């Protein structure tokens, strides 16, 4: 069914997910300014339609591989906002137990491959995940998110080529927000669109307005149906724009103000609200109700995260190997403080 014909509750849900993402990130921005978040944070303001429109098609048995600007995908795939908030604040209650930063969190149960900072490296991994669905004769799909910037690394090529050869059920979502850190897209590649590359790997590339959640939804429908039916990968390039700086510490003076203003007019949330108001009887009271719900969720999440303990220092040594491997770390403080070497004790 085309997105515009979806029942009201589904349409409202798309809107809710975009709103939740934006509000969650605004909350993060505040916490960051209060010094509660130690590393960098990378926000998706203006890009919320992409996770909302794509994840709407996913089932519990599907697997996503998000990147640093995909907070919405974590939430929509089912990660508890409390747990995600705790992760971002480096708390023991987060999925990485405080070991890795920001959205570097995964969940086997929810089907979320944890991102790393190494851009595009997760594309071959997602292709491998998709390969197993094919091996097992399942109709699940894997979804790999990445930026147009990351798509210029070799791993993009190798991952796409592998996926194309094996016709695995993989959907590649390129979030083309026009900038890779400070580098504008014209300096990143000589063609306009990453989706043009899909053909050279033997699958289809779709180019959509990434600020139009309905268009994103429709493109994803084509890709997911194809993947589930054994038709192989699809690359969907969502054209969008990074409204904020690369991270919260980046003032992004290199992004022309006029350009920013132009794109602010295409804000995906405002646009979709216009559609909903006109076509689905969405009004201020519906929005207020959503905002109230979201605010309660975020209050609870922030409180949980702030109240959660930091991980104990020694827990840094756990989970390098399986617990029964008996491989001990070699931290001098541990060894020497546990059994101090007394003169003459060692036979040199």
């Amino acid at each position, binding site marked *: 069914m085309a997105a515009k014909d979806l029942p009201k509750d589904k349409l409202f849900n798309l809107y809710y997910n975009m709103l939740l993402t934006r509000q969650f990130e605004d909350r993060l921005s505040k916490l960051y300014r209060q010094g509660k978040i130690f590393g960098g944070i990378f926000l998706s303001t203006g890009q919320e339609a992409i996770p909302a429109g794509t994840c709407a098609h996913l089932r519990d048995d599907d697997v996503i591989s998000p990147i640093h600007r995909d907070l919405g995908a974590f939430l929509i795939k089912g990660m508890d906002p409390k747990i995600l908030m705790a992760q971002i604040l480096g708390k023991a209650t987060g999925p990485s137990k405080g*070991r890795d*930063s920001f959205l*570097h969190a995964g969940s086997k149960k929810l089907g979320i491959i944890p991102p790393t900072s190494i851009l595009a*490296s997760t594309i071959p991994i997602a292709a491998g995940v998709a390969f197993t669905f094919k091996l097992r004769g399942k109709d699940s799909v894997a979804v790999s998110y990445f930026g147009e910037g990351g798509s210029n690394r070799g791993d993009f090529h190798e991952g796409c080529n592998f996926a194309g050869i094996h016709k695995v059920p993989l959907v590649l979502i390129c979030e083309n927000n026009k900038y890779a850190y*400070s*580098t504008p897209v014209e300096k990143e590649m000589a063609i306009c669109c990453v989706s043009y590359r899909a053909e050279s790997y033997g699958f289809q590339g779709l180019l959509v307005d990434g600020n139009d959640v309905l268009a994103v939804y429709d493109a994803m429908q084509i890709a997911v149906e194809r993947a589930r039916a054994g038709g192989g990968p699809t690359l969907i390039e969502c054209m969008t724009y990074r409204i904020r700086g690369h991270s919260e510490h980046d003032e992004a003076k290199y992004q022309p103000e006029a350009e920013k203003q132009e794109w602010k007019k295409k804000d995906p949330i405002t646009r979709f609200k216009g559609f909903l108001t006109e076509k689905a009887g969405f009004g201020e009271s519906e929005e207020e109700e959503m905002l109230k719900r979201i605010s309660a969720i975020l209050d609870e999440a922030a409180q949980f995260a702030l109240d959660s303990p930091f991980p104990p220092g020694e827990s840094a040594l756990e989970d390098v190997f399986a617990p029964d491997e008996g491989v001990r770390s070699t931290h*001098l403080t541990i060894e*020497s403080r546990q059994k101090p070497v007394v003169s003459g004790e060692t036979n040199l």
Partner: protein
Amino acid sequence: MPEITMLEAIRLAMKEEMERDESVLVLGEDVGIYGGAFRATEGLYDEFGPNRVIDTPISESAIVGAALGMAIMGYRPIAEIQFADFITCGFDQIVNQTATLRYRTGGEMPAPLVVRAPSAAGVHGGLYHSQSPEAWFAHTPGLKVVVPSSAYDAKGLLKAAIRDDDPVIFFEPKFLYRRAKENLPEEDYIVPLGKAKILKEGGDVTIITYGSMVFHCRSAIDKLEAEDLSIELIDLRSIMPLDKSTIYDSVKKTNRVILAYEDHKTLGIGAEIAALLSEELFEYLDTPIIRVAAPDTPIPYSPPLEEFYLPNEQDVIDAVHRVIEY
């Protein structure tokens, strides 16, 4: 010249070398108009233009590979990798292509390029913005590896690296970027590669270190001196080539050795030095050689974890006590 930071010293080294030698150019992600993620190349684009300060896509393999191609053709490229953690994406170009070129061409094709990368932890960077990968490269024949710990050395070593006819991997401890500062001489100078520096002379124990650990060793020594201990502090500066004679002379004098490095303990630079000392200077050693280093785990993010992970001043003090009481 007023006091400048290590970061400014690095920028100045590149600027002066680019002014001195037209074949020197810079390439990397966001190095142009933006001036680099850490601002190390700020102003270079305005002064030298887009042909000599080249913004690249996110393509570490192409950054190093293209730098090698330019080096073959007579240029002296400085390739910036935004964080040392991402150097893995250019690993083949460094290890298999760059490091071996002189050897496999019978000496005909040198590869005079520098790969600069901000390294090491202490800024809550987590797994992928904290690594100290110098040992991987020191293990690779054909590469020189440098890790400065002061503004003066950073400038002089980077200039030496740019002028060197072999590839140099230049790691810049980001923890020190703004912490390490001093007045630098006005005139041009280099700090030769392969020469360690004795930062403090002493007779009881030799501490051999480099990079951010210099910072922690200095503060440890301040405390140890209050106990009337006399410590010799050696900053390796160059990991490869290793300045064996400075190390050996010191160890012959003190007979006790601590090796302090921020990298994982196992097979880090300290492991190599300990093996060398055991082979060459066994009869001079009065105590076991102690390594103060990080545990063999990925580098965790959350502050209590990172604090636990990182070797610190107290670890150095404990190690010195251990050899003194031995």
